[in-house]
């Protein structure tokens, strides 16, 4: 969903800005002042946010944060690319321009480059982490180190080494009572919460199996330009490179996998599966597969069958089905049926919320009240690892154990983050990227 210019809707703001701030930070502070967690007690206090990663999702998250009831102000932005940052700034201005005190990013607080995140984090109370997921562990670690509350997008890493880093930082966040919300927004969606409540009440009994899908068509590609270094090309086409994206099983399908883990209240022990590049074979599609099918097995023997694919013009489905002893839940339809097909419960769509907004509403309400309520990082890291072992299983043809993967130290990140540095994977003379081949590719041997 890309575009070149401002989107100016009339009357698009979801809420009128409630209160004028009594502390408009209009250039009064020359030194960044580190706020302490739980500093917020009175309604007059401004909650300062920084946006790290200014793509479409980051920009959306920033606007959602600025659309909560609380006194939230964007004070810093960071992106690897100046053009992305400036487009994002203009888009945010287009969305919240009429709200006083919402957008307060001075020119010198627009940070560009691989190290931009550190400077932006320093200026805020709450940070939004929305870069490609390969950078998430480093950014999250830094935000927690600096004592900030965090909203971060899923997935939270692309490799087991990154997962370890996030789990460690998650522990520190708990000890510092820093709220962390992760954008696995089904957990904040009314229909899912209603079905989960009924599941807890035993409406379908114990789970016997689960089926999860993210089957959809093709995604965007950004053409290579002669002035791009290989690093810049990969950064702009981050979806197709595992160190940045983790493959679509990790980047998208994690949503559905997370629902399985949520209802199981557990994480799979092993993954075995298959995948490949059936239709999306060109060099512009980097190294990722276009389909994965994974059998995840939990400690109690329950199987979650997971399928995801990017096949243009094939049937699409993004959904989860949870089968219990007494019935089944089809999440996307918000319906619970018994095994004869009788509807036991149907969620009324009229009561659906906007989950992307809800996660910010709840996070910022807690921060404004000085409450410590959210610690999503640990479970998001474990769900991300669930998706990662799926990828390792389809790439290698091996059965991949969760614990073994977690402690494997497998690290896809480059030695150095710089536009003139070599990415961890480079194309051959014809411009093709090597991709995994089951039986040849092996892990933890």
């Amino acid at each position: 969903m890309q575009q070149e210019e401002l989107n100016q809707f009339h009357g698009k703001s979801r809420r009128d800005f409630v209160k004028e701030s009594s502390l408009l930070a209009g250039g009064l502070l020359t030194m960044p002042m580190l706020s302490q967690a739980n500093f917020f007690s009175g309604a007059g206090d401004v909650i300062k946010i920084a946006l790290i990663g200014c793509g479409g999702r980051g920009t959306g998250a920033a606007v959602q944060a600025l659309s909560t009831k609380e006194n939230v102000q964007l004070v810093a932005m960071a992106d690897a690319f100046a053009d992305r940052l400036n487009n994002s700034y203009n888009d945010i201005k287009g969305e919240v321009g009429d709200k006083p005190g919402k957008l307060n990013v001075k020119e010198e607080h627009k940070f560009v480059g691989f190290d931009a995140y550190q400077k932006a984090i320093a200026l805020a109370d709450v940070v939004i982490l929305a870069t490609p997921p390969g950078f998430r562990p480093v950014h999250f670690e830094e935000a927690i180190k600096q004592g900030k509350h965090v909203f971060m997008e899923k997935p939270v890493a692309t490799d087991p080494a990154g997962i370890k880093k996030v789990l460690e930082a998650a522990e520190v966040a708990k000890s510092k009572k820093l709220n962390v919300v992760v954008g696995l927004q089904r957990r904040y969606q009314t229909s899912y919460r209603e079905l989960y409540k009924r599941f807890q009440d035993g409406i379908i009994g114990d789970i016997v199996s689960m089926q999860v899908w993210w089957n959809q068509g093709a995604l965007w590609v950004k053409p290579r330009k002669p002035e791009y270094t290989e690093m810049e090309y990969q950064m702009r086409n981050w979806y197709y490179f595992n160190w940045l994206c983790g493959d679509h099983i990790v980047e998208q399908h994690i949503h559905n996998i997370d629902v399985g883990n949520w209802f199981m209240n557990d994480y799979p022990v092993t993954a075995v599966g298959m995948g490949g590049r059936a239709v999306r074979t060109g060099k512009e599609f980097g190294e990722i597969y276009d389909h994965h099918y994974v059998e995840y097995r939990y400690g109690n023997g329950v199987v979650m069958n997971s399928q995801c694919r990017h096949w243009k013009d094939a049937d699409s489905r993004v959904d989860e089905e949870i089968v219990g002893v007494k019935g089944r839940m089809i999440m996307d339809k918000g319906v619970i049926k018994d095994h004869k097909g009788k509807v036991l419960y149907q969620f009324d769509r009229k009561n659906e919320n906007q989950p992307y907004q809800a996660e910010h509403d709840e996070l910022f309400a807690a921060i404004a009240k000085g409450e410590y309520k959210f610690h999503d990082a640990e479970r998001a890291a474990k769900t991300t690892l669930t998706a990662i072992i799926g990828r390792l299983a389809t790439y290698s043809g091996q059965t991949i154990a969760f614990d073994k993967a977690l402690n494997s130290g497998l690290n896809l990140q480059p030695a150095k983050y710089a536009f003139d540095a070599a990415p961890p994977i480079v194309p051959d003379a014809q411009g093709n990227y090597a991709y995994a081949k089951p039986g040849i590719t092996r892990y933890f041997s």
Partner: protein
Amino acid sequence: MKNRILALSLGSLLAGPAFAQEPSQPFAAYEEKLPGTDFTFKMVPIPAGEVTLGSPAGEKGRNTDEGPQKKVKINAFWMSAYEVTFEQYDVYSDPEKDKTPIPDGMTRPSPPYIDLTLGMGKVGGYPANSMSQYGALMYCKWLYAKTGVFYRLPTEAEWEYACRAGATTAYPFGNNAAQLKEYAWYAGNSDNKYHKVGELKPNAWGLYDMLGNVAEWTLDQYDEQYLSHAAENDPWIKPTSKTPRTIKGGNYRDEAVALRSASRLKSDPNWNRRDPQIPKSYWWNADAPFVGFRLVRPQQQPSKEEAERFFEEVVDQYKGAR
């Protein structure tokens, strides 16, 4: 700029009787092939005439925006017998399917973030759905570039005139909602999904699925007082902002009353609330799988300049209208 726009007569944009090219197409039903494909779409003639828009005070399920009733005159046009299908729209959306691309190119819809057909069907004549009004109008613009024929969305008045096909009752076939299932996919028979176009009975003028299946975009800015403001000849509430627009016909999720000829629906920015990105897509509504469109071809075709002005002032100026 603004003044120049307002000074234009609606007629010149819509039908241009003063400057129009001579219509070369006999005023009869015809099939047009979508260039470079095997897909055809059927256009049926809708003769000029009069219609009383809106509903009488006593009509069951009536909303206040359906009155006071007003008699208006409508010029002749063709209307597509069926809703535009997914496969037809996809030739515009997907550059790989467009075997005869326009030389200087044309903006195409960005792929939606999720599959917006929701698994209801794509192949074999299902209606195109989920596009913004801008996306529907851009298809018309693309079709004009490909065929040289000026197609657009129907005005609200043209839509209701064509739907009623001479009937003054709540539905084109009378007042008995029990008959609806013969003509329309709605909550009573749809199984909560859209169906292939043209499977049920048409109205008296040969138009299928006017009621139900997917609701249909019109060319009008939604106006609560539409009927008080409507002109006597070819009324059209010209857009002054990107939203809301009027949608007609009801859809597969609706109860019978929402499928009455007079019933009007106001588009809602909430229909795109699941789009998590900013800027939001110009092209799609992530939460309005029940909206589609059909085509109109005014019998009096505008000149090339007039057609271009229409696309500039009604479409390009409101990029992303929804």
